[in-house]
């Protein structure tokens, strides 16, 4: 399965944020998306998620046949967690499981999902408005992977986690990557190098893959920085 982006363009006023993006993301890999502040990483995600209408180009999903993206194809985890604060964690999950029931292969008790995400028993029936920032983030991540969307867009999702949880999440992402195309946007290069299989940089409105070749981490870092500095 491949996510194919062809000639994607997006401008705001006269500023061309995404110039002419052509790229293929493949299933089974975690892509680390790096870019400088304001490079357009979130814009790219918003275009893929159809939050923004694109000015030109096409986005397809190819799995035996090539087709347009459906809403169910995408899970989008934002850096600021957004959860409905009037629900408890359990109710939120119940609702999500119900509206996705056609696509959830195995019927699992709700508590299994909480276990998977390591959310304490005590917290499961609290209102989400009383969850901490990190916990909200966990819930957001959980509902996004529950229905197993083909593509997972993660916009700096680990920054609000403490080191222990961040490590848990990294392992979790590695464990589910075989079934998904995961694009992971971050500013932290160490995280990208540690977690991601491929490094892609967004610079001057274009996407460019940085081949790892046989470089060690230090050489790769230098190469990425050089690429990002290019004007």
């Amino acid at each position, binding site marked *: 399965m491949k996510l194919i982006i062809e000639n994607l363009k997006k401008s705001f006023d006269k500023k061309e944020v995404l110039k002419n993006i052509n790229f293929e993301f493949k299933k089974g890999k975690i892509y680390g998306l790096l870019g400088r502040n304001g490079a357009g990483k979130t814009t790219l995600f918003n275009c893929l998620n159809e*939050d*923004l209408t694109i000015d030109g180009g096409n986005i397809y999903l190819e799995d035996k046949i090539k087709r347009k993206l459906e809403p169910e194809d995408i*899970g989008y985890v934002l850096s600021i967690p957004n959860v*409905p604060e009037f629900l408890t964690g359990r109710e939120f999950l119940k609702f999500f499981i119900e*509206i996705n029931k056609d696509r959830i292969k195995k019927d699992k008790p709700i508590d299994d999902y909480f276990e998977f995400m390591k959310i304490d028993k005590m917290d499961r029936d609290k209102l989400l408005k009383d969850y901490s920032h990190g916990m909200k983030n966990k819930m957001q991540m959980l509902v996004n992977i529950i229905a197993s969307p083909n593509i997972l867009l993660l916009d700096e999702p680990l920054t609000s986690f403490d080191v222990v949880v961040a490590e848990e999440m990294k392992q979790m992402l590695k464990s589910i990557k075989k079934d998904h195309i995961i694009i992971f946007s971050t500013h932290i290069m160490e995280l990208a190098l540690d977690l991601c299989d491929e490094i892609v940089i967004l610079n001057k409105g274009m996407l460019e893959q940085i081949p790892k070749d046989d470089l060690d981490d230090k050489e790769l870092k230098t190469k990425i920085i050089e690429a990002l500095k290019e004007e």
Partner: protein
Amino acid sequence: MIKSFITSFKLKNTYRVNSVIYSIRQFPFVKKILPNTLYKNKVLKIIGNIISVIIELCSIFLGKFLYLWLCIVSIVGLYKTNQATTFIHIFTFLTLAGAFLNTYMFNPTKDKYYAMMIMNMDVKNYTLSNYCYAMIKVFVGFLPFTIIFGIIYNIPLFISLLMPLFVICAKMCFNAYTLIKYDKSNLVINENTLTKTFWIVIIGLVVFAYGLPYLGLSINYFIFIIIFLVSLVLSIYSFIIIKKFDKYKSLYKKLLTNENVYAVENNNSAKTIKENTVKQITLDTNFTSNKSGFAYFHELFVKRHSKILTKAIKKQSIFIAGVIIVAIFLVLTNKDLAKQINSILLVYLPYFVFIMYMLNRGTTLTQAMFMNCDHSMLTYRIYRTPKVILGLFKERLKTLVFINLIPAILIGFGLVILLYLTGGTDEVLNYLVLFISIIAMSIFFSVHYLVMYYLLQPYNINTEIKSSTYRVVQMITYFVCYFMIDQKISTLYFGMGTIIFSILYCFISLVIVYRYAPKTFKIRI
């Protein structure tokens, strides 16, 4: 000090001009024509400056005129006492109350925050120079109107001249008192969060202002002059205190907290609304639901928001029932009134458009829907599938219509009963039309608010309203309803018109929602 004032004035003006340009950009279609760089456009800056001057002049003159007109002149005529002294009387007491409520100095506004906290301007220089300007504005703003109204009421000219001066003196006295208090106890008085004691004093003064003339009592020129002289002497002392006070910096550090500035500057700021809306969520542990999917989701939303939904409607209904019962009692005991109400009911149905508009919970509800629910849910792509959007729309529409129907039915019945008790009508159809048209109005507003919300979803991720079209529609709705207040049309015709219009509107708008909402209902970027 003058330099400090000029700098601060420029800063305030830049901020205002940019706001003007920003607002211009918010008009439908304008944004597409005007680029982002237009903040440096000279012509627009000039236009912005002109509008800024107009706003400043309005704040100087128009505000004072409206205040005098609405709070005093329009009321003076209701009393049987001497008009001139009543005018002075109300003015004096309201000025004393205003000294607490409108200090300028203790109002934590954004321009003060920018200048003193962010730009680090000299606090004392800034405060004193701007305070002087504010007081001059008060004087200049009041003067022409105290003279004009003075001539109208035959008040001696020197009294008219003293009146604006009295306002300044009163304000200065309270300011000095606040500074002394801060000096002694380190407690800052924020004019927007006054303590109970102050409120008791203020209410007392307002009661004196409007109550005494009702009893035939009002202060005369002589007493006014005495009060003025006392305040003048005190204000000279106050002036020295204000000038000498040297803790402005620590005072403003306490006053200009983020929370204060946000709360005041914009009660409607996105942040405050969001925080207040979240506070409306209540958890009822005993609640269980046997529904599933979005029906379950929606039911939980309604239960957890009972404060602004069911409970609010309950209060509203009790109030309406009370008004109807009082009205029934009055028409049964007073035949003249009965006659008047009968004729009102047969021609003043348009007035009820405005009442139904005011009673409808649509705005509050759609706002809560966004702030506490859709704001987060719309970020999930699956929530934006047509099936979920339309399924939830249906559930919400049912709730909104149902909730608003309760007070509407009460009003409808109430009006029919009143019509019957006040002598009835030859045309029996009037009863039916009266009742159904009230119901139709209620349904219309419920549908209208929800449809607008789904088609124009105006909020962005920071819960700010970003759609100018939405604002314009809201304004038009308000003005149309307001315009209806004065209309006198036969209830039969207007009622039938309303019913037909409502049915057509609901039908057409629902068709549009089903077709377009899956595309339009998303977070604005």
